[in-house]
Structure formats: structure tokens, C-alpha cells
């Protein structure tokens, strides 16, 4: 401890800040040579592109995503309709853009639920005694035994098929994964000297969590958050495909695939492009997650 290296001039601005802040994140990223990680960069660009398309669709789509036009039914992909048109003559590209909106919405909301649920359960479990810990962890095991899609179907069957219920269900089913991570790291952190020292000078629990635990857990949680986006988008697509997620007229990618199946011989493009959009988005999040995992790995 005595011979600790002085903080390099470059990183002075983040030194001594215990708060989980953007500058400490950029510090971590710059420290681990973000620039040289090709797949991280590729993932970032793909995600930015999808976010751009989805955000743009709030104000502008090439055609109205809901307006039916009976004269342009089943047009195959061309320059004016890059993804073709569907059975009501709606432009598939515009509908896929709006679908991006829904996918990102699902990703954000279910991830927020999983993250907060996981943080609460994880900290409770990690900081309290063995009995509480054991009960909470077994409950989490029980929740984890339900495959995501099955649990989501259960929730939707009771509370009704709509997108909000689907998002909540997908979020809840991912709580155990976050909770386990938070719990394990909390347990390993709570015996470290800096935490004990902080407790001994009277730091209260909320401050302790905010100042010491969150900054340490943050890095591994960012990995989980990114991969959770990919998972949520795939789950919602599956759920919408069987008609229990997004309800018409909203064009989520899973819903578009479901509707495409009646016209597979006439219009195969309806079954291809929404899937490509989905695969692209998931690829982006996966690459991003791989990059973040490498950065948080000390061996990298």
C-alpha cells in the first residue's frame, strides 16, 4: 500500500471520485484500449445505426407504416420499396423502422426492471444473514427454472396479452441473473478493507452502496445489461410471433414474421427482412457485450 504508484496526470480528473460517473466509465474504457477492439467498434456502429433508424421513425418514415394501399400489394423489393410491401400494400421498410422502436423499447424497459430487481435482491441477499440469503437465492433458482418464454406466457395468460405485460415478464424472468451477479460481488466486497474502514467511520448503508459497491459492480453489470438487450429483443420477437406480445396494428419484428407466414409462397421477402433487422440488432448488442466483457477482464 505504501509504494502505491501516483495517479498518472492523464487520469487525475477521475482520481478520488468514488461516485459511479460517466468520467469513471470513460476512464475504464480508455484504460482498456477501446480503440483497438474491432468487434466493440462494429457493435457500437450497428447499435447506433439501429437507434438512428428507430428514432427517425418517430418523425419520418419513407411511407406511412400503417396506411393501407390496395394498389401496391405484394410488391417485391425495389428501389422505391427497399423491403417490398405486405398484403395491405404497406411499405415493409417503414414498418421495420417502427419495429425498431418497439424492440428498443422492450430492451430498455425489461432491462431496467431486471437491473433494479437484481440490484435490490442482490444487495439484500449479499448484505443480510444466511437465512435471508438462502431464501432469496432459492426463490431466484425457482424463477430461473422457468424458461423466459414460458414465464412470459404465464404472465400474459393471467394479465392479458399486450406488449407492456410482455416487457414486464421478460424483465422479471431476468432478475435472477442480475441478482446472482450482484450478490456474489457484494459478498466478496463486503469483507474488503476499504468497505470495513468506511463502515467503521459510520458510513450508512445507502451511501456505502452508492460510493463503494456500485462503482465496483458497475463494470460487470454493463456487460449483463448489453447482453440482456439482445436477449429481451429475441424473447419479445418469439412472444409476438405466437401472438402474445405486441398487438396489431403495431409492427414489431416478431409480429411481422408471424403475419408473413400466410404469404410465404407469394411474398418470401416478408419473412426475410424483419428477421434480418432483428439479427442485425442482436448482433450489435452481442458484439458490444463481448467488447465490454473483454474490457472488464483484467487479463485483457
Amino acid at each position, binding site marked *: 500500500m505504501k509504494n502505491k504508484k501516483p495517479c498518472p496526470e492523464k487520469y487525475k480528473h477521475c482520481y478520488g471520485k468514488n461516485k459511479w460517473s460517466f468520467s469513471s466509465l470513460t476512464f475504464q474504457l480508455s484504460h482498456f484500449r477501446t480503440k483497438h477492439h474491432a468487434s466493440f467498434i462494429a457493435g457500437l456502429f450497428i447499435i447506433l445505426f439501429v437507434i438512428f433508424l428507430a428514432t427517425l421513425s418517430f418523425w419520418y418514415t419513407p411511407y406511412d407504416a400503417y396506411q393501407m394501399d390496395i394498389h401496391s400489394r405484394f410488391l417485391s423489393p425495389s428501389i422505391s420499396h427497399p423491403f417490398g410491401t405486405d398484403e395491405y400494400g404497406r411499405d415493409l421498410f417503414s414498418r421495420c423502422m417502427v419495429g425498431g422502436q418497439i424492440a428498443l423499447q422492450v430492451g430498455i424497459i425489461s432491462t431496467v426492471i431486471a437491473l433494479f430487481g437484481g440490484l435490490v435482491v442482490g444487495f439484500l441477499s449479499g448484505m443480510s444473514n444466511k437465512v435471508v440469503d438462502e431464501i432469496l437465492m432459492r426463490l431466484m433458482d*425457482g424463477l430461473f*427454472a422457468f*424458461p423466459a418464454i*414460458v414465464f412470459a406466457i*404465464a404472465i400474459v395468460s393471467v394479465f392479458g396479452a399486450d406488449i407492456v405485460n410482455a416487457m414486464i415478464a421478460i424483465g422479471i424472468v431476468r432478475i435472477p441473473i442480475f441478482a446472482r451477479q450482484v450478490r456474489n460481488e457484494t459478498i466478496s466486497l463486503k469483507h474488503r478493507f476499504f468497505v470495513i474502514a468506511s463502515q467503521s467511520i459510520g458510513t450508512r448503508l445507502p451511501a456505502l452502496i452508492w460510493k463503494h459497491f456500485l462503482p465496483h459492480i458497475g463494470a460487470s453489470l454493463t456487460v449483463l445489461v448489453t447482453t440482456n438487450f439482445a436477449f429481451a429483443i429475441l424473447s419479445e*420477437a418469439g412472444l409476438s*410471433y405466437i401472438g402474445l406480445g405486441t398487438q396489431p396494428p403495431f409492427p414489431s419484428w416478431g409480429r411481422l*414474421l408471424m403475419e408473413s407466414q400466410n404469404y410465404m409462397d407469394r411474398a418470401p421477402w416478408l*419473412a426475410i427482412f424483419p428477421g434480418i433487422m432483428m439479427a442485425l440488432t442482436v448482433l450489435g448488442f452481442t458484439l458490444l457485450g463481448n467488447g465490454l466483457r473483454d474490457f472488464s477482464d483484467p487479463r485483457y
Partner: protein
Amino acid sequence: MLSFAIRRLLTGIITVFAVSLLSFFVFNALPGNPAQVILGLDADQNAIENLERELNLDKPVVLRYFFWLSDLIRGDLGNSTGYKKPVTEVIVSSLPPTLSITILSVLLTTLISFPLGILSAKKHNKFIDYLITSTSQIGLIIPGFWLGILFLLIFSVRFHLFPSGGYVPMTVNAFEWLKSVILPALSLAIISSSVLIRMIRSSIIENMNEDYARTATGKGVSERRVFNKHILKNAMIPVLSVFGLQAASILAGTIIIESVFSIPGMGRLLLYSVQRRDLPVVQGVVIWIAVVTILINFIMDMVHMTIDPRIR
């Protein structure tokens, strides 16, 4: 060894208990009166009260849970409101297609992932390794049901090689049976394989660099023997638990893939029951799948225990 098995069994039972608690909470804490839902809105007040008594709805929640649990342990999941038959019977009758797909898919996963994973690790950083790992990346980013749709598009719509849906029981015509389940099984297997291939590859490569492998080579054991006897055995240990998880996710995947290929299995049953608000059936299927998932993980832990003396 026995104490580990018993401890593992106990956690398994507790997990099943947690599953039952969660399902009871989801299915029986629903807003509104279940008796009213079953009988319809314009039902007689007397009939509702009778049914409430029959379903124990007039009792406190905790008591209801224990009634429900004791029925569950005896295998009584209640009666389906749609089919007017015991739920267990309804589920069992829908099992054959689902089990066919699941088992065939697990088989295919094994046949695809182990040879390719081992090959990829042996040819580490060669062209064939890059080819396998980059192809398996595709399996990670697309959902199984879309792969199923693409298969339908290619093999049924374009080339008319396979039926575009439906299920033929094995007892009727084994060849037609295989034709009806091979595409759904394959699309699930490809997704699971791509996870496993990467896992197998990285696990083997990690073990190749271990000290024990070098020691064995150093004392003159032939390279093939080191690989087959030492590295492969150790590398399979972490793969096993992932294999169990993949088997469980294949089972869950059948629910959606059955819709793609219109196969009348458990997924179809689940879907119909949700649409008709036949909650006892939904509850039965959900619990069944969760319990099978726990069972698979338990079996995998037992296999793990028998091959790895370190955790006994």
C-alpha cells in the same frame, strides 16, 4: 459422494417448492374472482358460491396454497375448463410430438456440436477454425423460430422436399414422422449447437495450455493419447452443465417452433389454452416445463459428480 447427492437433491426439491410458490402466486393471485371467470358474467350467485366452496376460494390464501400443493404432489393439476378433462390427461396426450422434437433436437445438437467443437479446437487459429466459429456466431444472433421459417421457405415452399407443417405419429409411418419433425428439430439444434461449439472449443483450448497437459506430453505420452485421455475428459466438465441448459432451452424452444410448423404438441396446447383462458392447463404446462428443467439440471449435476471427483 452420497452426501453431495443428497444435498443436491434437497436444493432441487427446494427449488421445485419455490417454483410451486411462484406459480401459485402468478396463477391464483389474479385480479377478479376465478369462479366468476369460469362460470361467466351472468352466472347465478348460488352457483358461484358453490363453485367457490368447491375450489376452496372461501379459505385464506395460505391454506389454499397448501391444498393446491398437496393436490399437485399427488399429480392432480385440476380440471381443464376447455377440454373438461383432467389437466394431466390433456398434457400427456400432447406430449409425443413435443418429446419427439426435443429428443431428436438434443441428439442432433450432440452430433453437430461435439465433432465441430473438437475439430475447431484441434485446428485452433487455422482457416477451418475461423469458418466454424464465425458460422456459429450466426446461430447466436438469430432466433430458432426464424431459422425454422427460413427452412420452410427453402425446403418446403421452394423445393417441396418437406411438408410445410403437421405431425405424423411414429407408429403410423416412421419415415413421414421423421420428415415432419426433422426441420423443427434441426432449427433448434443449430441454435443450441452454436452455443455449445464455442463452449467446447474454448474449454479444450484452455485445457491444452494447462500444466498437466504439458507434463503428460513431457513424460512421453503420445499427443493423441494426451488429447483423448487427458484434455478431452477435463474439457467436457464445464461443457456438461451448459449442455443441460441447452437441453432445457430446446424444450422451451419447441413451444414457438411448433407454431411455425403447426405441430399439435405442448406448445400448441399452451397457446390454445392461453387464448381460451384455460388457466389450469397453462399452469400445468408451465409447472411441467419448470420441473423438467430442474430435473435436467439435477441429472447433469449427478453426471458431473460421477466424472469429476473434485466436487464429491
